[in-house]
């Protein structure tokens, strides 16, 4: 298909959007060709979501300046419904499905087919089946959303968009919560839609995916359009995109480090954990891991393999029913029956779900930083406000948390800075072992680099680090040793300098021979 046959489906011209006291978008222009996948890249806070909110009517016409031309006509959306009526559908990072309702009910929510004023469930179900077939989902449309995985939920969202006869689909971080297989399926689907003439705008931090699927890329930095790249003509690769996003070239995606690895100081032996509700299911099976001082240990596994379950069950049995197993620290067995015992024994766990499990979003920065070890700044039961301020201020400086003051609410921070607050909170608790669960999820490239540096600095202080990540390049770039986990069991342990993505993936997707023969 040559470029000249494509016409422009969407053009946003000189969009400027101000919030009280801040110019979120300044003269931003993009143009999307029909039948293309157009990626928007930029660091967190660069203005990507604001731009999409302008486009979809979340910020109604009149609250911004500039023109939107959709299918050759100037449009002025006053809310999401009006943009959807025009054929622009946005799928947010946090899915907007109702867990208690069925797939069919969710697809037609707010858009129910009716017959004589009552919902026509026969038609609804029939069209639901057609839509599900189009997105490649074979589940019964009567299934409740809460019973299907997040990957399938994403497909339901797309089916819902298709039901509204979408012409332009906006996907905000569509694969952030998906494993590799689900991501691949979703990306295939988006490419399939493109062949059927549905254009997409995709926001993603996963640059390798953008490189794979996008036809053109607009890079936004600090609320301004930096450049638009044509993927096939401009020879775009990840480094090229990163350079545009951060305004400089990152020599390396990982800071330099010379590991100083000491003796084994932490060991989890023959760890077995049951699912909290489905008690017939073992989520962690006979797992043994060791951590040395100053070592960064990776834990690689697909989503649902039991990575988080293993980590949280070690951290004061905060997940599942503990069945058996021992934990040794500095040669002596320790018993961690609850989270406060785990913290007292020098463990820290940074959750993969920052907003739900990591932070109290209505709290301010200083109170968040000290929240895991208030005794450290207290005399008896009384918290010292002075120490709280001084110590949190010290972390703000050393971790370079971008905020004018530690009195600010954590909600106002960008994802990367929120994650730094979480890291500060756990560094504040003076741990010997940090378990980091997806510490760079949803964080832009610049902040990632800084967080890698923090992790390395912690290891350099002689602390042990267990790092869980879905991104293999990250594990390969940062860790000293990698455990692979599959269906709740540790399948392999590889020195990172001898590891490559293929062998890791093999161990992540199949049980160990030895275990099978038992």
């Amino acid at each position, binding site marked *: 298909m040559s470029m000249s046959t494509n016409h422009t489906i969407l053009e946003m011209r000189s969009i400027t959007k101000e919030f009280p006291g801040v110019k979120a978008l300044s003269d931003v222009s993009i143009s999307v060709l029909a039948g293309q996948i157009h990626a928007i890249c930029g660091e967190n806070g660069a203005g990507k979501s*604001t731009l999409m909110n302008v486009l979809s009517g979340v910020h109604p016409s009149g609250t911004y300046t500039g023109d939107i031309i959709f299918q050759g006509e100037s449009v002025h959306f006053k809310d999401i419904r009006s943009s959807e009526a025009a054929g622009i559908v946005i799928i947010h990072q946090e899915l907007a499905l109702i867990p208690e309702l069925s797939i069919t009910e969710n697809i037609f929510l707010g858009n129910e087919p009716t017959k004589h004023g009552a919902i026509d469930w026969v038609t609804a179900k029939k069209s639901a089946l057609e839509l599900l077939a189009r997105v490649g989902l074979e589940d019964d449309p009567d299934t409740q959303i809460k019973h299907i995985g997040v990957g399938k939920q994403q497909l339901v969202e797309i089916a819902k968009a298709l039901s509204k006869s979408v012409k332009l689909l906006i996907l905000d971080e569509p694969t952030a919560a998906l494993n590799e297989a689900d991501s691949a399926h979703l990306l295939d689907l988006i490419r399939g839609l493109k062949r059927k003439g549905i254009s997409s705008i995709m926001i993603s931090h996963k640059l390798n995916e953008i490189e794979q699927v996008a036809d053109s890329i607009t890079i936004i930095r600090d609320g301004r359009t930096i450049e638009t790249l044509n993927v096939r003509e401009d020879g775009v690769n990840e480094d090229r995109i990163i350079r545009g996003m951060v305004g400089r070239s990152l020599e390396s995606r990982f800071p330099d480090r010379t590991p100083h690895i000491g003796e084994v100081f932490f060991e989890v032996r023959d760890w077995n954990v049951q699912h909290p509700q489905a008690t017939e299911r073992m989520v962690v099976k006979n797992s043994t891991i060791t951590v040395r001082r100053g070592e960064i240990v990776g834990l690689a596994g697909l989503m649902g393999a039991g990575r988080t379950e293993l980590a949280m069950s070690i951290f004061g049995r905060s997940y599942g029913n503990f069945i058996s197993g021992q934990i040794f620290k500095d040669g002596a067995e320790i018993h961690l029956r609850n989270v406060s015992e785990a913290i007292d024994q020098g463990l820290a766990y940074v959750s993969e779900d920052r907003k739900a499990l990591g932070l109290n979003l209505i709290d301010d920065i200083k109170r968040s930083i000290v929240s895991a070890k208030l005794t450290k700044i207290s005399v008896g039961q009384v918290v010292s406000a002075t120490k709280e*301020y001084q110590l949190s201020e010290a972390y703000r400086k050393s971790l370079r948390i971008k905020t004018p003051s530690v009195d600010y609410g954590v909600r106002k921070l960008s994802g990367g800075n929120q994650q730094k607050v979480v890291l500060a909170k756990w560094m504040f608790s003076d741990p010997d072992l940090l378990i980091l669960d997806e510490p760079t999820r949803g964080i832009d490239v610049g902040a990632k680099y800084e967080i890698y540096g923090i992790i390395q600095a912690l290891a350099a202080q002689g602390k042990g680090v267990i790092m869980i990540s879905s991104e293999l390049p990250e594990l390969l770039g940062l860790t000293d040793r990698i455990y692979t986990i599959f269906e709740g069991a540790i399948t392999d342990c590889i020195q990172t300098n001898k590891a490559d993505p293929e062998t890791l993936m093999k161990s992540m997707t199949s049980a160990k021979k030895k275990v099978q023969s038992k």
Partner: protein
Amino acid sequence: MSEATGRAKAGFKDLKKIFGGGQSDVRQFGILFSLIAIIALFQFLTDGLTLSSGNLVNLVSQYSYILILAIGMVMVIICGHIDLSVGSIAAFTGIVVAISMNSWHLPWPLAILLGIGVGVVIGAWQGFWVAYIGVPAFIVTLAGMLIFRGGNQVIGNANTVPVPQGFTTIGAGYLPEIGPNTGYNNLTLLLGLIVALAVVLKEWRARRVQEGMGSTPAPMWVSVLKVVLLDAVVIYATMLFAGGRTGTSFPVSGIILGVLVLLYSFITRNTIFGRHIYAVGGNRLAAELSGVKSKRVNFMVMMNMSILASLAGMIFVARSVASGPQDGIGWELDAIAAVFIGGAAVSGGIGTVTGSIIGGLVMAVLNNGLQLEGVGADKVQIIKGMVLLIAVGVDVWNKSQGRPSITGFLMRDRKTLVREPGETTGEVPLSDTPDATRPLVPAP
């Protein structure tokens, strides 16, 4: 922004600090202004009757028990629960204590201890269901509301039981007359003096702490003006309380209330337990993963509420010299209204003891003023309902418009004016919009 308006803004910001607003208590600041406005309005409408000695004494002794309930209730609400049973618990404790003195001839100090004990037991019962079984507090305390109301009527045979004179001190007593005849109640004067000095001392300490933190305190004139204003109020109130009808002075129940306000403000602001209440209410799962024993926090908060309800019940019984089957009906609603007018969020995690007391005072002054004006109880209810709705409604609406409150909008400080793009919310994620509608007073 020109330099002049810049200075004006800075001046406004400093001015705001006079009211202890700091950066975050915008809501409290607004509601405090409403309180002052309501007092001024009724002072005008009642030709000075509102701020007369007799009425002030009456106001304190008549509403102290509701304000005591509001202290416990704000902690329950911060934790994300609600307690509907406080009126019934107050009535139940009242009848037990009255009968213990009347029929079993228990000395009144022991009867007070018994009453507290009743609160502990009931609190443990309700706390158990809420914290350890996981039944929503709404249900547990709805059940408690029925159980303890019925309990009151079973124990008291639905009769009114009188209480002996010594006991009535906690509800109807005043600071005694001692020392030389000055024409004023000497102990009340002394109390006023102590409070006035405490205001000075507190401001001085606050400045020291701020300096210790390395932040610049407000200019000296702000502190001086703040102390002068506050002490003027304290001295004026002292003279009114001390100079009333002979035999009256500052009510004992007011002293109990004052001590509790200080104690619980300190607990919620400055102790580990206080932090844990906010943490559990703000995000229970995150709190648990930070080592907070949320079940214990929930248990303690529910228990504390019941103890304060028992105390409030005893003060009421002492004031009305008898315990009856209709005591405490509707108290829970007054306490809950006070807490929400005072800026707490229904979803938990937000609220302050001081705010709730101010909210309670708004309701009290309104009630009292309307009564003085001879407005019937029927219309008073309608007006109170409208005030609750409008107070919270204005707040929620302002919040959704991106303004903290009307007064907050007029006096918003630098942080909302100069936000550096990229680091604060240049992007407004959709997922955050529902939260933006909650009344927001950031924790102290």
